[in-house]
């Protein structure tokens, strides 16, 4: 127990900090409800309650061991993929192909456990890419072939390949005994990505005027984007020494790619939803919408952050 605490000091304090933030949010929501009963805070309350559940599950799986965390990630990818395949138009003959796509999830995470980065990085882009096409050909229905091949592989890339990069931080070689481990890297990435979402929202709501891309997401403003990215960079620099081996300039760059990547991940899923003419990707997370609504930013920030670290440390 003592050894565990000593080895994971930074992480334990950080997760304690997140719980503190949640307590503050819960209390402020309760106060707001009392002070201004005329406004509707149900959505906000639901959102915070869902955050509690996400944070508890995330904290337990991250603090225990890599196996637990991989199971957590397999499950997250599975839920995201299921949501995606339920939203997009599919053909009846695609069922068998979709089953192969689902099977790819545990395999992709197995490469991480197996410490085989080479396979991890080509499995979905090469082997699954070929297999999906092949299986669709064997199905034998040419009408809608290209649409199925494209949408199924795009889903695999977003929900399996991209998201698995979070767990792939496990493969970054680090010095031992510094209190910095793959766990702190995962925390750093996830925390900054989520805070970046919040920061962009708050800056946009407070000072937003000029829209960045009105055709895709009318709520995204220049002030939100710039304010969010700057806040994320500052936080990245402040937290960098405790969670990563990065120096000052490298932390700044990490903050920049997480800030910008988060923005583009967000609007990519927005574009998808706009194309399918839906508002939320689902209702799995009460107050947030679907699981894709929550993971959208990570589909961009996770690969960018991992490969940035790999340029420096391998």
């Amino acid at each position, binding site marked *: 127990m003592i050894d565990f605490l000593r080895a994971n000091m930074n992480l334990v304090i950080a997760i304690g900090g997140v719980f503190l933030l949640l307590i503050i949010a819960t209390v402020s929501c309760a106060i707001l409800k009392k002070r201004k009963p005329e406004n509707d805070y149900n959505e906000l309350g639901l959102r915070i309650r869902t955050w509690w559940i996400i944070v508890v599950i995330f904290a337990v799986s991250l603090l225990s061991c890599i196996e637990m965390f991989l199971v957590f990630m397999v499950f997250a990818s599975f839920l995201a993929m*299921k*949501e995606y395949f339920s939203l997009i138009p599919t053909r009846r003959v695609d069922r068998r192909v979709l089953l192969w796509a689902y099977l790819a999830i545990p395999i992709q995470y197995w490469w991480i456990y197996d410490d085989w980065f080479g396979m991890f990085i080509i499995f979905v882009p090469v082997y699954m890419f070929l297999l999906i096409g092949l299986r669709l050909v064997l199905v034998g229905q040419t009408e809608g072939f290209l649409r199925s091949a494209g949408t199924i592989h795009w889903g695999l890339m977003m929900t399996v390949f991209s998201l698995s990069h979070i767990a792939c931080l496990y493969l970054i070689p680090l010095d031992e005994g510094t209190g910095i481990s793959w766990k702190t890297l995962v925390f750093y990435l996830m925390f900054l990505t989520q805070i970046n979402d919040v920061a962009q929202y708050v800056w946009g709501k407070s000072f937003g005027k000029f829209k960045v891309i009105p055709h895709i997401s009318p709520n995204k403003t220049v002030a939100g984007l710039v304010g969010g990215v700057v806040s994320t960079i500052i936080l990245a620099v402040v937290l960098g020494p405790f969670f990563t081996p990065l120096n000052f300039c490298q932390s700044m760059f990490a903050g920049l790619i997480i800030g910008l990547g988060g923005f583009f991940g967000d609007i990519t899923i927005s574009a998808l939803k706009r194309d399918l003419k839906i508002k939320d990707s689902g209702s799995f997370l009460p107050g947030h919408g679907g699981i894709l609504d929550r993971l959208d930013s990570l589909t961009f920030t996770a690969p960018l952050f991992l490969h940035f670290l790999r340029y420096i440390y391998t």
Partner: protein
Amino acid sequence: MNSILRYIWFEIFVKGVVLVVLGLNIRNRCRLHRHKQIILVANHNSHLDTLVLMSLFPYKEMNNIRPVAAMDYFLENPVRRWFAEKIVRIVPLSRHLRSVRVDPLKSCSDALKEGYSLILYPEGTRGNPEKLKDFKTGISHLLKRFPDIVVVPVFMHGLGKALPKGEFLLVPFYCDIFVGEPFFWQGDRVEFMETLNQSMNDLAKQGDFKAWN
């Protein structure tokens, strides 16, 4: 013994699969629980329909619900028969009229008289996946006999994709469930069927789902 198996099957296996593998989006769930005895009327696309609908109720309440199912299919072989009768506890319904003197709805009437709620699929068969067929009028004959039992229309989408007729591999898909406003028998068969069809079509429109081929 059978009730233990039934408990394991519904409370652990079915609810587990529904929660993890499928996942439900339910609109207006409270309408299911407003009345003690109901006739739940739903569209039929998959074997999963009955299991999912039953999983919407707490175990105690579920024990009071019996699905009406085709005799010729479910009582055909001994294993299926045991499963249908002892585990799911279906109300068997004959799809073929053998004689004019036999009351085809007797089993349903008896179950209702004993106080059970029923799950009914007036489309008659699972049919093509994710396509709503016209409702058969048998249900109106039943309701005429029980004008004080409420009808709860339910429209489901997604299960026909997860496990369509003739397939044995389950592919995970989210399932959307729309519960309509409960209503009673209005004294006229044509009027009743119109209300039912209208309510079902309205529920289907809420989802705006595309055809699936």
